[in-house]
């Protein structure tokens, strides 16, 4: 019949090919745009952050290992006080601890909403958890300052300011992120896995533990990474409860500080291009590098979990 027509059509560029080409171009430009933005920000942070070491002649090792932070002033030997170790410890401490607590809670909440009581959980827990994201940091900080800090002061003594208070506030702040991503990850586990496991006589918990959680591990890890990222980047709330003192924390209830809180509180008060300003950008750069390290570690753990 229309053999020739079909042959001709086959050798022409079809509408589908054109839409595909257009789609590829559109979606590629989107990702390219993001890559450009990401690269621009990285470059933006790195170029300023590195200037501390290249232009201002600060020693990298001292930056990482010294504990005195007052870039505007110099110590006895005339070297600017740019010891970032207290902030590194503080950032690491609050992020790690809050993620450590938030993870089981997030998994528990997610399991409750997906496996145990999907109807009730979805109706009550879900909107409440979403709501937590929209509360401004300042409000978290304020609640932390008026509730958490005095409580810690009463129970443990000291001023109440410190890593412990920061951890509590961050725990609540990152909970929604980790929980919603965990929920998505668990939902993504195909129904038939559960059915197969239950059919084999496994209890619900065995199914959850051995099948669902195993299969959802990579997704949960992503959730944790994003949660830690949020904890790392959070400034205002943490700053209000951690004490924001550039001191080495002796314990969980002595005033400490994080890279972000020092960066945020100082950045508007310094003049661009000055040592004080560059040193703050170095903190931002450090933050990026530490977050990269965190990310790689969590991915590595996730991969190992997946293989088992």
């Amino acid at each position, binding site marked *: 019949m229309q053999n020739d027509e*079909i042959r001709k*059509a*086959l*050798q*022409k*560029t079809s509408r589908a090919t054109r839409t595909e080409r257009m789609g590829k171009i559109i979606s590629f430009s989107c990702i390219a745009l993001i890559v450009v933005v990401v690269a621009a920000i990285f470059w933006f942070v790195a170029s300023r952050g590195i200037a501390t070491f290249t232009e201002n002649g600060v020693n990298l090792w001292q930056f990482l290992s010294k504990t005195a932070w007052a870039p505007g002033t110099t110590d006895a030997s005339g070297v600017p006080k740019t010891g970032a170790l207290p902030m590194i410890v503080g950032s690491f401490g609050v992020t790690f601890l809050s993620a450590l607590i938030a993870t089981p809670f997030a998994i528990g909440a997610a399991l409750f909403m997906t496996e145990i009581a999907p109807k009730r959980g979805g109706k009550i827990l879900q909107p409440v958890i979403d709501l937590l994201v929209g509360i401004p940091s300042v409000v978290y900080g304020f609640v932390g300052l008026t509730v958490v800090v005095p409580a810690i002061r009463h129970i443990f003594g000291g001023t109440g300011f410190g890593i412990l208070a920061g951890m509590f506030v961050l725990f609540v702040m990152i909970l929604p992120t980790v929980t919603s991503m965990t929920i998505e990850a668990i939902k993504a586990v195909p129904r038939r896995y559960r059915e197969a496991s239950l059919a084999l006589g496994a209890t619900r918990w065995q199914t959850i533990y051995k099948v669902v959680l195993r299969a959802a591990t990579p997704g949960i890890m992503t959730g944790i990474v994003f949660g830690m990222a949020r904890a790392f980047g959070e400034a205002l709330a943490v700053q209000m409860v951690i004490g924001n003192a550039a001191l080495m924390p002796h314990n969980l209830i002595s005033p400490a500080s994080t890279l972000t809180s020092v960066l945020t509180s100082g950045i508007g008060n310094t003049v661009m291009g000055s040592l004080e300003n560059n040193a703050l950008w170095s903190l931002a750069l450090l933050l990026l590098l530490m977050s990269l390290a965190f990310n790689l570690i969590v991915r590595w753990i996730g991969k190992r979990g997946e293989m088992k």
Partner: protein
Amino acid sequence: MAEPKQFIRELPATAELALSTEDLRVFYGSKEAVHGVTLPFERYKITALIGPSGSGKSTFLRSLNRMNDTIDGSSVTGKIMYRGLDINAKGIDVYEMRRHIGMVFQRPNPFAKSIYDNITFALRRFGEKDKTVLDEAVETSLKQAALWDEVKDKLHKSAQALSGGQQQRLCIARAIAMHPDVLLMDEPASALDPISTAAVEDTMLQLKDKYTIIIVTHNMQQAARISDYTAFFYSGDCVEFDETRRIFTRPKMQATDDYVAGHFG
């Protein structure tokens, strides 16, 4: 004297070919999954591809309308001739080609849309806007797929609420609504119960008048019941290709005989 490694029956010169392959090899990365298969597919006939799991029959089938393109690292050498054109050649539009060489998959995969939309979605994407034409296409294709009577009252309900067998017939209806020349079917009945399987087989036999069907199946009775030709695949090779009744009664190759007799696989 060395025994021949394969037997491929030549079709009579009068037979009109809908599709044919010449030394078709399919690779995943550097691994060769199909080793140089040359097969003819006669028009308006059903050809069954049988063989044990991992014999390469599904891979072969999926390469016939280049569905393997979606898998990272897969590549093909040799020729797949359709209407005198090699569908892997550079100037061939893969999407246009797939309109003419349709496919039905192992697991029913209706779109998460209504029954009506499942059938009309692609038609509308290709520019058909006339509602009467679309309505007619829905009715005809559902009737051809022997599903019309079961679903005519719920055309605007979700397709995913149908039973497995109904879903698979809907997928067949969806494929034939595009009026393809060739219909590739990858174990279309493997996930279905016997009644649904029978319904799907009936459908296929009815479709034979208008379509060339190539079907992969694990079910030898099914192959025997519905197909005109059968190709036996074994570890990436097509060991034997013949008229179905010959394959099941007097196979030329020992391996075919063993498989058909149920000695392995």
